[in-house]
């Protein structure tokens, strides 16, 4: 059998699972196989999310609504909906609540379910308020440092330390 990409004998018989029409069988010589395998790596999950999201949003939103939605920013971590939609990754735990309305149809689409039924942390979820508070304070501290407002950064750091300290003494 000859290589599908050149004339050399095919010694590789590769099954590619990424093809749109399901499986793709390739018969390649060692050189072409090597090249194919090195460039063939692909991230699967990210394009899938943006794909599902954008088709879902196109159905439900006008262009104007979408633009407004894209500009929406999480008050805790600062990620915009646009950034999430592009990257396929969220910025903080609070995004599940803040973008809840948009996420729910996506979760249904991916998982066929949107309610967790598995194990739960044993200690119970105490005091989620102070957890998101910490994420927000950390972000504000970064911003203060960037603006070279070191006094404010120092204040924020003390505040973070004191919340962390409380958390620890509760354990």
């Amino acid at each position, binding site marked *: 059998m000859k290589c599908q990409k050149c004339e050399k004998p095919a*010694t*590789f*018989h*590769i*099954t*590619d*699972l990424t093809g749109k029409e*399901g*499986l793709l*069988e390739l018969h390649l010589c*060692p050189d072409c*196989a*090597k090249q194919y*395998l090195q460039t*063939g*790596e*692909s*991230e*699967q*999950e*990210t394009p*899938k*999310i943006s794909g599902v999201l954008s088709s879902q949003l196109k159905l439900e939103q006008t262009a104007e609504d979408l633009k407004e939605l894209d500009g929406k920013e999480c008050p*805790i*971590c*600062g*990620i915009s909906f646009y950034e999430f939609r592009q*990257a396929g*990754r*969220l*910025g*903080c*735990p609070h995004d*599940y*609540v803040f973008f809840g309305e948009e*996420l729910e149809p*996506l*979760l249904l689409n*991916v*998982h*066929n*379910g*949107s*309610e*967790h*039924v*598995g*194990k*739960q*942390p*044993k*200690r119970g*979820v105490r005091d989620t308020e102070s*957890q998101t508070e*910490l*994420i927000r304070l*950390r*972000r504000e501290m*970064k911003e203060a440092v960037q603006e070279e407002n070191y006094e404010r950064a120092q204040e924020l750091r003390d505040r973070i330390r004191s919340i*962390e300290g409380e958390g620890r003494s509760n354990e």
Partner: protein
Amino acid sequence: MVIDELHDRCGEWLKGDGPQSDIVMSSRIRLARNLADFPFIRRCNDIDKANIESTVRERLSQEDAFTTLNFFNVAKLNSLDRQLLVERQLISRELSNGDGSRAVAIDSRERLSLMVNEEDHLRIQVMKSGLNLDGAWEQINKLDDDIESRLTYAFHPKFGYLTACPTNAGTGIRVSVLVHLPALAITHQIEKVFRSLQKINLVVRGLYGEGTQAMGDFYQISNQVTLGKSEREIIDQVADVIPYVIDYERKARQYLLDEKQNDLFDRVSRAYGTLQTAQQISSEETMYLLSRVRMGVNLELIDNLEIPHINQLFLRTQPAHLQKICEQTLDTDQRNVERANYLRLQLKRDDTDAQAN
């Protein structure tokens, strides 16, 4: 433990024992977890990441179950050592190639790996040789409880464990079984099997993680859904289907033995012969040929080789392992020569035996 001690060890997933180990290489379960008081990785700067790493390390050092683990600072490892860990499936490519503070904790038997600052703050993974998902779940469930007693996870009553990517939310679990299916590939039935797996929402991947090419006829079968089903249901969904896959592969092997014996013997002995005599060989071709030889040993067409030995060769002919064995850095051409040398040595023809017959 230092990295240099790893490459000549066996590692759990290549031991070649455990149930159904002629076809099932290993069973793996991983859990994705995030700390409640830090942003997800995408929104972390270097200071956040360093904070996460030191928090995890410090808190876990208080827990007996973790004092025996070896922590590696992945950011400080050179690229060869990182690649060695990837080849052993102890870290992902994403963690290896990432930036900023990141780490992995590994037990000495390489059954457990705990990645810090990968896509999520924590990726806990347990591996077992052969088909043993129950054993893997028992161990990882306990570990997860131990970690949770020291760290507060990001959790929401409705969405479960919160993950950076919504595709992992809920249980955060990925259950995967690594299977060797050469006969299904030869008989062109593998596509049919995969289609039926996709219909029940299972994912099929190649050997090394997210990459999707099935090198050496190794396939990872895993769940896609993580939300709306319990861990037990998700494990059972994968566990229930594996016996069918095993059965298909066995039937395909039997068919080759019954109907295509000459063709099968030819493939196996040519593969073995090439590995025993090649003067230069790529890792891709090596995997391809070792796959045939592995099946030949399972079908007792080759009788002077053991499965654990072949499993070892799959790993030790990978680029980083080979360079560790040769104790020097090698470019691709040099590796191809050294790989062939190593294989010839490992699979030496026993000429005295041949003459005696």
